[in-house]
């Protein structure tokens, strides 16, 4: 069962997370959905796949009025990110969805029409929410070619999509990272294989290092807080990514 938990709460401003679903069918990767609330308006990040919609919706509705969710933010186009779109729109046809503009004509395969999508430019954009502004931060090629993260300067929280994601065993599925070295083993293979370019990694690390971040919130696995945020950025900046390529060229594997 998924639960709605509060990550940050300051006056009318809140970050909630719908996390951990030990009951999920095994073939589905566990996902974290984050709800950013300001006043009467809310935005839901990477709302998840079609098959997990019932549990996500139930967890959300048990603690929050789902009619206040006005926006979805899709970090990229993956099925675990946004294939539930048609069901969210069934509940609220006026919902609008932010995503990289390069997916403008791809995402409608999951649902929605010309009013649904707000295409984000490659350079990123401001995203208004109940009177404040969030920021869509470019993270292209990490791993998707049209990929954006969501930064909240007020709460000092960065939603980082698949960056920072870890495929955790059930016995290590706490909400927050507690032992970085132990945790990062479960992120290693994923980042090596899913992230395609060193250039993209360094670009992102530079950008992230310059932002005050208290919580780094990935779409899969545990949340990094405090010093673990910078630990993650440093670890990532040195990682040899693009392992899929090396698998096709043994001579590169030897060199690495």
């Amino acid at each position, binding site marked *: 069962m998924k639960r709605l938990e509060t990550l940050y709460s300051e006056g009318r401003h809140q970050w909630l997370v719908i996390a951990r679903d030990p009951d999920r069918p095994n073939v589905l990767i566990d996902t974290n959905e984050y709800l950013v609330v300001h006043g009467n308006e809310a935005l839901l990040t990477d709302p998840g796949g079609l098959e997990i919609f019932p549990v996500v*919706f139930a967890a959300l*509705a048990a603690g929050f*009025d789902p009619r206040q969710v006005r926006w979805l933010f899709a970090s990229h186009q993956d099925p675990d990110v946004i294939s539930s779109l048609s069901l969210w729109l*069934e509940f609220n046809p006026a919902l609008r969805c932010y995503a990289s503009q390069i997916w403008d004509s791809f995402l409608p395969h999951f649902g929605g029409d010309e009013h649904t999508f707000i295409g984000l430019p490659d350079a990123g954009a401001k995203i208004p929410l109940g009177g404040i502004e969030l920021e869509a931060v470019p993270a292209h090629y990490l791993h998707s070619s049209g990929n954006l993260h969501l930064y909240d300067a007020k709460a000092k929280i960065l939603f980082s999509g698949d960056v920072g994601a870890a495929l955790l065993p059930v016995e290590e599925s706490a909400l927050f990272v507690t032992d970085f070295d132990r945790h990062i083993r479960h992120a290693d293979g994923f980042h090596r294989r899913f992230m395609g370019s060193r250039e993209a990694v360094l670009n992102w690390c530079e950008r992230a290092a310059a932002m005050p971040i208290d919580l780094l919130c990935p779409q899969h696995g545990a949340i990094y807080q405090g010093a673990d945020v910078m630990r993650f950025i440093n670890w990532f900046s040195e990682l040899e990514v693009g392992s899929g390529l090396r698998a096709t060229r043994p001579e590169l594997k030897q060199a690495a």
Partner: protein
Amino acid sequence: MNSIVEAANLPLARAADLHAIVRIGEDIRGVMGTARAVNLAAMNAMLASRRSGEAAVGFRVAALELRGMAAGLTEAMAGLSRLVFGLVRDVALRMHKQRTHDYFQRVENTDPKTVAYLDPLIARQEQEMGQLAFHLGQLRRELDQVARHALRLCDMGLSLSRSARVEAAYGGESAPVLKQVAAHQTEAIESVAATLRGLRLELAGERAGART
């Protein structure tokens, strides 16, 4: 919640319905091919009988009417094709709606707030599915009517091809050829009629399936 669906006697959309409709579409394509062949053969028979002169005038008349019958059959089949196209589209739409409805049914709704959010939505979905089911029922009935009409054309065609066979005997030199043509026509029309009867059965089964 499932019991509500059953109580309202809403037919559940199943992949089996779609398979049945696709089979019906294939049957129709087969019949259209045969109807074209009947048409062509009737024309050839007319040409052959013309060569036999006055002796084959009776055969010529029968062949001419057979041609008219084949044209009517082709037209009816084109109508069936259009109906099946609409049926495939609507059955697929119904499957999609059913699936969406199923996801909302799976939202755990012991929480009264959640129930309040979802009940009107689920009621609306069920109403839409009910409307679609009604529309599908109409389409199926229309399809059956056109199939019945086509079967009547086949009956007519069969008696025509029988009289063409009788007339062929007076065809002088070309009597054996005309006889063969008439026999071939009979065979073709019989196969069309068999397919149409099967199609009506399939349609009845599909209708019964949709009610379960």
